[in-house]
């Protein structure tokens, strides 16, 4: 087991090196002049030249890449040409907000999606089954940003029970930073007032992000549960007189989880990459907004930094998924 994890971790290194190389080449092949944009329309050629020198953009590409690669290890992920701030620090600032949103959405999707999938599989072709299946079809097709707008309209503008946007009111002081997750920090500080505010702000964006994964997880869970329920061993268990609850939760659930796990893993990266849409709607100060800002100014270092972080989290999630396979299915347990 440990060996398996270690081997996978070692394999991550060449992938990341290849990724930075690819991103670097793509960034340089593309037209666009970040320094010119950052310096403004009235900049003299001398100013632009000195700026290029400052950011090392006058060096040949292989040398730039080498500088970047060696910097990565020491936590120097380059500088933003536009804001002149180090990318690594910025990424660390914005990452918790995005992760909090993604985790919240994932929890909603899993906690609602898996029981619903089980239930609809057991009570197949019932009223609940048809209702949730129709909702799921719509949920997959619903654009996150449009759903976000509709939620804002309903819960913030008309019902006025949840805040419209943002992560925390500007006039209030967020709980002391420990993890960077406002909800967890509030819990650690034992500050129930702050927890309520943080959850209220988190609710709408998390739901907007969760609907599509929820629908897919539910469909996947329903399909695999139906398949497992038709297996011979389930009939044997029934014949032995085991209770339905025991069969469902002890034997069926575990076996139906494996294919659903893959989907959950893939959705983590999908949500991280698409967080920008929900963050735009709700003005959520996360990686997505940070990346958009950088993209609009053609500032490539932050874009590469954000992409790299998301890729690392993606690879890590896939590793966790592979380890979890073994938990649910002893046949694929790793030596």
């Amino acid at each position: 087991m440990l060996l398996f994890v270690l081997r996978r971790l070692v394999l991550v290194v060449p992938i990341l090196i290849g990724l930075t190389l690819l991103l670097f080449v793509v960034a340089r092949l593309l037209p666009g002049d970040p320094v010119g944009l950052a310096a403004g329309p009235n900049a003299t050629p001398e100013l632009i030249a000195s700026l290029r020198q400052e950011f090392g953009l006058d060096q040949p590409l292989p040398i730039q890449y080498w500088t970047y690669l060696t910097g990565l290890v020491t936590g120097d992920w380059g500088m933003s040409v536009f804001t002149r701030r180090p990318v690594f620090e910025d990424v660390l600032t914005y990452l918790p907000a995005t992760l909090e949103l993604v985790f919240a959405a994932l929890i909603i999707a899993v906690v609602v999606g898996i029981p619903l999938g089980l239930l609809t599989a057991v009570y197949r072709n019932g009223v609940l089954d048809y209702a949730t299946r129709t909702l799921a079809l719509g949920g997959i097709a619903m654009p996150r940003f449009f759903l976000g707008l509709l939620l804002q309209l309903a819960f913030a503008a008309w019902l006025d029970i949840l805040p419209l946007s943002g992560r925390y009111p500007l006039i209030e002081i967020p709980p002391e930073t420990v993890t960077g997750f406002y909800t967890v920090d509030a819990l650690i500080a034992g500050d129930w007032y702050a927890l309520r505010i943080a959850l209220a702000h988190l609710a709408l964006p998390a739901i907007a992000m969760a609907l599509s994964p929820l629908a897919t997880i539910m469909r996947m869970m329903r399909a695999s549960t139906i398949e497992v329920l038709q297996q011979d061993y389930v009939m044997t268990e029934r014949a032995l007189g085991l209770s339905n609850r025991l069969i469902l939760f002890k034997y069926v659930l575990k076996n139906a989880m494996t294919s659903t796990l893959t989907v959950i893993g893939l959705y983590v990266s999908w949500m991280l990459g698409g967080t920008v849409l929900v963050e735009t709607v709700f003005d959520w100060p996360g990686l997505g907004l940070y990346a958009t800002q950088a993209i609009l100014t053609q500032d490539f270092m932050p874009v590469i930094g954000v992409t790299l972080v998301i890729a690392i989290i993606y690879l890590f999630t896939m590793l966790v998924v592979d380890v979890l396979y073994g938990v649910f299915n002893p046949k694929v347990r790793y030596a």
Partner: protein
Amino acid sequence: MTTPEPLAIPRRNQSARLENWSRAFYRFRQSWLSMVGLAIVVALIVLALLAPFIVPYPEHVEGVTNTAARFQPPSASAWFGTNALGQDMFSLVLVGSQVSLFSGLAVVFIAVVVGTAVGAIAGYFGGWIDEILMRVTDLLLTIPSLILAMAVAAALGTGVFNMIIAISLTWWPAYARLVRGEVIGKKEEQFIAAAHALGAGWPRILCRHILPNIVSPIIVKASLDMGFAILTVASLGFVGIGVKPPTPEWGTLLSGARSYMPDYWWTAVAPGMAIFLAVLAFNLLGDGLRDVLDPKARR
């Protein structure tokens, strides 16, 4: 001794291939959800094609404003209301369907062509060609595609074609993976060995013998992807990268409506519902095609 009568084969008035297709269509018709999807898709395409002739206020699409009629709620003269510039939302959404459907189709088409070429070559030749092509493909698959598409689209500059190129760039790897797997499975078959024996070269074997046999999974994936391509196009428009006004595009229209949201909700609901409907219709159609063409995946 009598010579055995030659077995009489009943004549058919349909060729075998045609019969296969009509059987497939019969199965497709059995699912009313697929038929609903097909109906909406056909309706959308017809509307998009007819848009220039039936648009009620063509001048609004060109960018003409009518500030006297700002934020009119939906009514008989403006079905979806008017926006901040007094333009008829129905006209904008109607003409916007052209951009969205065309870009979606173009993205999937480019992705299929490039992905199939790369995947077929990698799968057929194997060895170091396969190794290099697939490593690049895998790397592209780890990158969050929306961010990459945004970055490329922003660098190339605004415009429908630049946006199509940017999104296609992030979409072909999935097809390359799919086609490679299918080609590897097919190239060991007997009929390929027979084609080799007859002296067929690799382009002929690939194009005439392998590709026609792996068309189904590609069609299924492409039809399921159409909806997501439209969604991605709208997403880029929504974050402000991609098509710029006055060209009407659903995502851009929705993003423009955001600032007037609680009070003038209709400016957002019309383009948003259009995106939702288009994605839903293509998903239903894709699901139906998958059930017909890929019976193993049927649940």
